[in-house]
């Protein structure tokens, strides 16, 4: 079979049949969420802060991982400055902890979108929403296990380091997809003054 990007694009963007209107109840109703705080203007700013925090947290985490399991290709890792790891690991924990209130606020700001109608307009829309599950679950898992670990409360049965390391790739991957899909909206929202913001 010959791979035809155009065919794929057409399939991904073909409109899906709309579900029956009778199912549009409760939180799915139009105008169900009225607070002006559920807005792109707020979400874009919280998203920017979270993106920076997660980026720093991911890079410092990778450094810590490869210091602890130093492969021979990383033999060039310097032993100076003496306090470098103090700073990078302090940043790792601080950015992770600061992300907890940021993530909670971000989720609250955008949660009306979980009841978007119709739930999936196209296949591409469905895939994008599915990847958000990975992002929310991954971010929640990282922040919770990290918090429990620094508190010395080993409430989980799995091995913390391995789980925290591999879930980081899933979370950052899902975050990059999220940034890609929201870039246009976020750039518009970030260049808008609060008083003009509509949504």
């Amino acid at each position, binding site marked *: 079979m010959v791979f035809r990007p155009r065919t794929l694009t057409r399939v991904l963007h073909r409109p899906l049949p709309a579900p029956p209107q009778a199912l549009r109840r409760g939180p799915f109703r139009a105008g169900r969420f*009225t*607070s*002006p*705080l*559920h*807005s*792109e*203007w*707020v979400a874009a*700013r*919280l998203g920017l*802060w979270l993106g920076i925090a997660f980026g720093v947290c991911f890079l410092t985490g990778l450094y*810590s991982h490869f*210091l*602890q399991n*130093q492969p*021979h290709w*990383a*033999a*060039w*890792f*310097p*032993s*100076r*400055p*003496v*306090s*470098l*790891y*103090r700073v990078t*690991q*302090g940043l*790792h*924990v*601080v950015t992770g*902890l*600061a*992300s*907890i*209130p*940021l993530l909670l*606020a971000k989720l609250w700001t955008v949660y009306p979108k979980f009841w978007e109608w119709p739930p999936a307009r196209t296949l591409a829309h469905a895939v994008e929403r599915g990847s958000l599950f990975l992002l929310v679950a991954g971010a929640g898992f990282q922040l919770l296990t990290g918090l429990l*670990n*620094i*508190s*010395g409360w080993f409430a989980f049965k799995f091995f913390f380091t391995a789980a925290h390391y591999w879930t980081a790739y899933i979370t950052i991957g899902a975050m990059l997809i999220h940034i890609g899909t929201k870039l246009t909206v976020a750039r518009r929202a970030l260049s808008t003054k*609060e*008083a003009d*913001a*509509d*949504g």
Partner: protein
Amino acid sequence: MAEHVPVTPASGGLSRRGFLTTVGAAAGVVTLATAGATVGPLRRLSPLATRRATVGPQDLPVNKSGAAARVTETAVDPAYRLLVGAMSLSLFELQSLPQHDAVLPIACVEGWSAIGHWRGVRLRDLLDRAGIGRDRWVRVESLERAGLYRSSEVSPTYARDPLTLLALRLGGEPLALDHGYPCRLIAPNRPGVLQTKWVQRIVAT
């Protein structure tokens, strides 16, 4: 959200800017309340810090005690010998080698850190005496029988750093058992879990 909504709700709730400021302040408070575990001057502002940098034997925190590592007998055994490659040293012989000082932090993966004043034998001096080459990686092994961090790998960059010590003393006293008596690895820029305590054997890998 297509329809226009007022920026400040009529009910007098939070404005968008007010909401952002509140969230930013919450993140700032979380940071200040915990960062004292590693940023000294913030210590008194950090009631939620997981560690106090000066609480512990010899004024330095400990994650794993000698009792938890089950070395309370082997570490103080008068027959203790340190093995470096094919070389074997008693504690007295180790104390008779040239001693050096290093002011280095213990920086834990959990985010806390604290400075210690260490004194002991340079790792590179021991490796030279044992005939272990300058380009070799070495493994430092503990008396601890089990445990994830009972040994650690040391790259040549770290092994040859003049600040990397097999420390015998901390703050002018012999190491406390919980800090790794009779001797422990202490190297610059290295996670605390790799600063192997109760060292028994050093081998080239």
